[in-house]
């Protein structure tokens, strides 16, 4: 399970940050926690809409992709910090990522009341119609007199507190499961995907047949694409096109780029189809995604793109056991976003990570437990995306 933890303080030294960081490491068996900061988010102003700036969009994406959110609030003048309130106002103005999101509140303050009043206000705020989060009832976690609570390694010293916090967090994990099950049932169906690419986007190279075997050559001529030893400026560096190719070819994985218009634009071509984990052939590049997959798997392909485009999931992974027990093959469909958080397509990377695991086990002396069941595709259950791709569709 993946949670986002919002540090409700923008102070340089923050006990609420320490608290979330402690939760992240101490309870990593319960969930994965991404601790996020609010200090780059400007003061909310109704007459100066900055919803589409990078800091707000990044937070938006993270919250949308998370199973739940933990907010750690300070208390300033009997209420939550102005910085945190400002963030919640941005997240209830033009966008509403907290809608129906399970939320747990924790808080640390210097005083013995431990942010109790701020937490009550925060509950009311999260309950407002523009926010509409689902806050876990009861289970207050207040850390009062916080300056005395951490040791020099930022660990909570009181074992009862650590145990109590564990209990509360376990309940939150159950709560998240429950809420997400309720919400799943009434989730709106997502818009259809245009898998045959009947439309264009700004970057589409027009007037070239997408299905053509030599799409790359035709399209390159059309836009005068640079190649060879021409320099390209990147974030952050300068490489020639040859160097970029060398670099991408050396990646220990099969990389594929599909844009947000569902057009297959690139793969790091180093092997012939029969030697690849997921076969691709050079002539496929440029195809609409519909032509890269067999008909029967198009609904799964569409489901994956819908998840990524809507932000319901940031990455969809599929475990493909058909390569036998001496390979751990995972297909990763990673959503890509620009600086403003707009969906930009899929980075599909496919790799056998067994060599890395083996190396790691050898280095550390750790062992894997249990049998590796090569045959079962348990994790593919509902939405298996067909592993075999394009070549089979073409045949």
């Amino acid at each position, binding site marked *: 399970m993946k949670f986002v933890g919002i540090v409700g303080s923008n102070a340089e030294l923050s006990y609420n940050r320490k608290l979330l960081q402690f939760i992240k490491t101490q309870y990593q068996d319960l969930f994965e926690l991404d601790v996020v900061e609010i200090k780059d988010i400007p003061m909310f102003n109704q*007459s100066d809409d900055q919803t589409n700036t990078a800091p707000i969009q990044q937070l938006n994406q993270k919250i949308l992709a998370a199973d739940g959110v933990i907010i750690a609030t300070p208390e300033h003048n*009997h209420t939550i910090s*102005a910085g945190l309130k400002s963030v919640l106002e941005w997240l209830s103005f033009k966008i509403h990522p907290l809608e129906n999101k399970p939320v747990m509140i924790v808080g640390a303050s210097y005083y013995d009341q431990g942010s109790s009043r701020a937490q009550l206000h925060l509950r009311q705020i999260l309950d407002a119609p523009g926010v509409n989060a689902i806050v876990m009832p009861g289970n207050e976690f207040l850390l009062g007199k916080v*300056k005395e609570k951490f040791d020099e390694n930022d660990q909570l010293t009181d074992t009862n507190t650590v145990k109590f916090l564990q209990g509360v967090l376990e309940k939150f994990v159950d709560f998240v499961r429950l809420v997400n099950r309720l919400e799943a049932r009434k989730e709106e169906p997502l818009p259809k995907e245009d898998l045959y690419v009947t439309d264009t986007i700004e970057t589409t190279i027009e007037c070239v047949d997408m299905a053509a075997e030599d799409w790359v050559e035709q399209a390159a001529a059309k836009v005068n694409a640079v190649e060879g030893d021409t320099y390209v400026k990147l974030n952050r560096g300068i490489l020639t096109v040859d160097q970029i190719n060398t670099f991408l070819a050396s990646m220990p994985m099969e990389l594929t780029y599909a844009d947000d218009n569902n057009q297959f634009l690139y793969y790091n071509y180093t092997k012939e189809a029969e030697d690849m984990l997921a076969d691709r052939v050079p002539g496929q590049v440029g195809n609409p995604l519909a032509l890269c997959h067999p008909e029967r798997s198009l609904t799964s392909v569409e489901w994956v793109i819908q998840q990524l485009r809507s932000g319901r999931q940031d990455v969809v992974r599929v475990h493909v056991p058909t390569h036998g027990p001496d390979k751990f093959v995972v297909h990763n469909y990673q959503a890509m976003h620009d600086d403003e958080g707009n969906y930009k397509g899929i980075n599909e990377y496919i790799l056998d990570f067994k060599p890395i695991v083996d190396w790691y086990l050898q280095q550390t002396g750790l062992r894997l437990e249990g049998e590796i069941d090569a045959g079962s595709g348990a994790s593919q259950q509902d939405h298996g995306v067909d592993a075999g791709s394009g070549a089979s569709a073409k045949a």
Partner: protein
Amino acid sequence: MKHFIGLVGTNSDHSTNRQLLQFIQSHFREHATIELMEIKSLPVFNKPEDSSVPTDVKEMAEKIEQADGVIISTPEYDHAVPASLMNALNWLSYGIYPFVDKPVMITGASYGTLGSSRAQAHLRQILDAPELKARIMPSSEFLLAHSLQAFNEDNQLVDPEQIEKLEGLFADFVIFVDLVTQLVHAHGSNKKAAENFSWDNL
């Protein structure tokens, strides 16, 4: 004649709460001078380690110190006080204490039917915090609902009942200000308590 500060509780360019304060300013000009104060330009409060406060804030604090009372008009954002107003109040209680024992009257306007009632309740709790400790006029509430429809083009409140209610509250506030100046016994210790009070020493 009394001198009040009318604190606009939002950084928005178009605000019915600003309109309300402008109305109060002109409607009661025979009884008090009212200077409107904006909170737009303030940076996000971040508890600077060196306890420094922007000059804008110092000037605001000075004006509040000088005034007989403050009228705060708050919008309601997400059932609470807007971040920009909370932000201003954080600065105005960070090593400076212009609100301690300052008579305050709260008003508020909202687009909906409730007239910012929940934000006003929060604002009372906020103003009661140890470093603000304002003297909030008790048992009084001015809620302007449907605020987008509440004014005519001359910026006058259209509902005579609302005007009458406001006149009553304003007259009470003038008396309340005088009463508070008589509550001198606790003043010295309140001021000292706020000044000696430091969250860092807890």
